């Protein structure tokens, strides 16, 4: 797709899609990312020249596109991607923020990081190898993080003669597996990132495929679901009280709407106190509005002067969440130091940080086959497990399935501030499939 200047100069017509890529080491992820960036004008001449110069200096014949994405000395030295990097590109319809996550198995926490804010995940598969363990892990992480849309990109179709049957069987196997996990929408696309088939331009080699190219799909997939279906959640970040001659009585609650829609005149409840009031006004960054929706940052004014501070949650009285001090959740452990039963931690949920204690670690999950290992005692880096946490003060939690924003939390080490774990409240996967309890004592090789 060629870009014209007009496409980039009309700022109002474009929306923002955040997506993450996942793939094993040799699946061609760099090539896919490189092609998306290149064909959308996002690799500029001087950047490409720098890559060519460094590649040539190392004696390579062709520019090493991985140099575009590996930004750290250590990554270039080792030739691997260590950390999530964020990339930006644009077409006429959309701006894209790509969380480029490493494919290496030991960096599961990085895929979790990338997927946490993604509207869509692209899972890459090598057509010659089909669905492998790593593919199942990626699908499981996407399902666990409730990424709304998953694209299966079956790459290297040129190496299997562009055979429809190869693609169809991989797509079928992946779709069955991911659907079981509760991934709501799966789009399978046969591609060759190297040859350019179905990445940006439709392929001339696969007449049998009638679907969109990867870029077309990225451009047209809906970025948010119907928010009227979600109850409104408004975590208070900061209280704005100018106390100036011009605004002697202004008292506004600043925050970003986490989900749903807020309307002037709506009856609301403030949690955890349970006090009630009515929305008197909504200021959307300088303008008074009647309605505002996620993820707008706004300031809400209430009819009554009640005690509200950072960490409180404002919700419609008709659909306010319950508060609890007992949190059951799935966590991905992201720190190098382990998390053990009995650990005293901080839990950061929306704008509220409270003390907590890890009461139980009932199980640890094997992403390969989704089996549960009971009572592991502790979780180490990249582990995913169930935890039960008791908090010092009540929290207004939603299930992660209902709201990624109010159903997620961090566990933090109070001693040194390290982020220990990323938590998701409620059931792990959308499907209610029976999980097999395995008393397997074999090592955790994840």
């Amino acid at each position, binding site marked *: 797709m060629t870009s014209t200047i007009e496409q980039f100069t009309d700022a109002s017509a474009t929306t923002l899609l955040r997506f993450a890529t996942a793939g094993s080491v040799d699946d061609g992820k760099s090539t896919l990312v490189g092609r998306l960036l290149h064909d959308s004008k996002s690799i500029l001449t*001087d950047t490409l020249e720098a890559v060519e110069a460094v590649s040539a200096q190392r004696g390579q014949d062709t520019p090493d596109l991985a140099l575009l994405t590996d*930004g750290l000395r*250590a990554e270039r030295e080792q030739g691997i991607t260590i950390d999530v990097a964020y990339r930006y590109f644009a077409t006429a319809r*959309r701006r894209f923020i790509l969380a480029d996550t490493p494919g290496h198995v030991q960096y599961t926490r990085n895929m979790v990081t990338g997927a946490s804010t993604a509207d869509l995940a692209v899972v890459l598969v090598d057509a010659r190898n089909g669905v492998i363990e790593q593919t199942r892990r990626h699908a499981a992480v996407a399902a666990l993080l409730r990424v709304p849309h998953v694209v299966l990109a079956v790459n290297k179709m040129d190496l299997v003669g562009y055979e429809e049957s190869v693609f169809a069987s991989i797509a079928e196997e992946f779709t069955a597996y991911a659907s079981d996990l509760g991934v709501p929408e799966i789009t399978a696309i046969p591609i060759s990132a190297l040859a350019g088939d179905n990445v940006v331009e439709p392929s001339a080699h696969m007449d049998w495929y009638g679907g969109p190219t990867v870029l077309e799909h990225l451009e047209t997939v809906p970025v948010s679901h119907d928010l009227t279906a979600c109850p409104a959640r408004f975590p208070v*970040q900061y209280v704005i009280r100018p106390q100036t001659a011009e605004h002697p009585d202004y008292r506004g609650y600043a*925050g970003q709407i986490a989900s749903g829609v807020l309307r002037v005149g709506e009856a609301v409840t403030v949690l955890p106190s349970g006090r009630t009031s009515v929305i008197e006004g909504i200021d959307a960054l300088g303008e008074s509005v009647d309605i505002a929706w996620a993820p*707008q940052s706004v300031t809400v004014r209430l009819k009554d002067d009640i005690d509200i501070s950072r960490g409180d949650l404002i919700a419609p009285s008709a659909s306010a969440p319950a508060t609890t001090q007992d949190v059951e959740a799935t966590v991905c452990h992201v720190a190098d130091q382990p998390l053990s039963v009995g650990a005293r931690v901080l839990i950061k949920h929306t704008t509220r940080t409270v003390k907590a204690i890890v009461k139980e670690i009932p199980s640890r999950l094997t992403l390969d086959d989704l089996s549960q290992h009971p009572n592991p005692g502790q979780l180490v880096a990249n582990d995913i497990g169930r935890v039960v946490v008791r908090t010092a003060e009540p929290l207004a939690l939603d299930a992660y399935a209902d709201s990624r924003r109010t159903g997620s939390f961090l566990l933090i080490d109070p001693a040194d501030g390290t982020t220990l774990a990323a938590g998701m409240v409620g059931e792990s996967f959308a499907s209610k499939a029976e999980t097999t309890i395995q008393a397997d004592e074999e090592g955790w090789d994840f």
Partner: protein
Amino acid sequence: MTTTVAHVHEGTDAPYALSHLDALESEAVHIFREVAGEFEKPVILFSGGKDSIVMLHLALKAFAPAPVPFTLLHVDTGHNFPEVLDYRDRAVAKHGLRLHVASVQEYIDAGKLRERPDGVRNPLQTVPLTEAIQNLKFDAVFGGGRRDEEKARAKERVFSLRDEFSQWDPRRQRPELWQLYNGRHAPGEHVRVFPLSNWTELDVWQYIARENIELPEIYFAHEREVFKRNGMWLTAGEWGGPKKDETTETRLIRYRTVGDMSCTGAVDSDATTLDAVITEIAASRLTERGATRADDKMSEAAMEDRKREGYF
């Protein structure tokens, strides 16, 4: 900006999406408010360049109708464009803000820093910056850095913990999940905060146009005495150019970035309006820093190395 529903689902009245600029604005405002809610003494790095001007504009919106609850800090290289210093001082006065200035020239005069042979002062900013942070005890420092600027910056977190020496360790960064920013730090440490992380150069310009934000004049095409060094057009002046073998000429140019005069290059341009600038950038085949920054060309990891030492 519209006051009513911007996008509507066909057949229903359900709003469902924000324009990309609204989404970026909302995210940046959220970041400003998180810092205001969790830190004792934040400061905004303000150079008078377009990114810091957009940062200040967002901060003003985030806390309106109350004033911005932060002070500003400028690291003055001593070789700044006069138009930019003028803009800085007017902005500070207009919004009733307080400005701290850390001066590279004072460090050189006191013998604490030595002028480099090439006269480039950008790398010299690190020491005055980090000492100002330590001496004034700032615990959160907003920078206008964007991840699209440079590949080391692409790895930068929105909340970036710095140790008591202001050092960045890219291998020991906290994972950043959802919109849950962890700003916890020990005494002496601080957090660098980048509310424009997810913005591109074009986003910044489109936002400036949408919000009708005033900029220093050097961002628009004007005639100026320049000379060529290392393939870039530099402004002639007392800072150290031109040398004997360099000749000045008057050209129609503008600046894409604003920094130290010794290493910030101008681009040939006839773009005198915001629309013309946006059109020019959308068509450009050069990155912002590649076109205009000498110091990034020093080595493949120049930015990473400076960031490790405490540079913004």
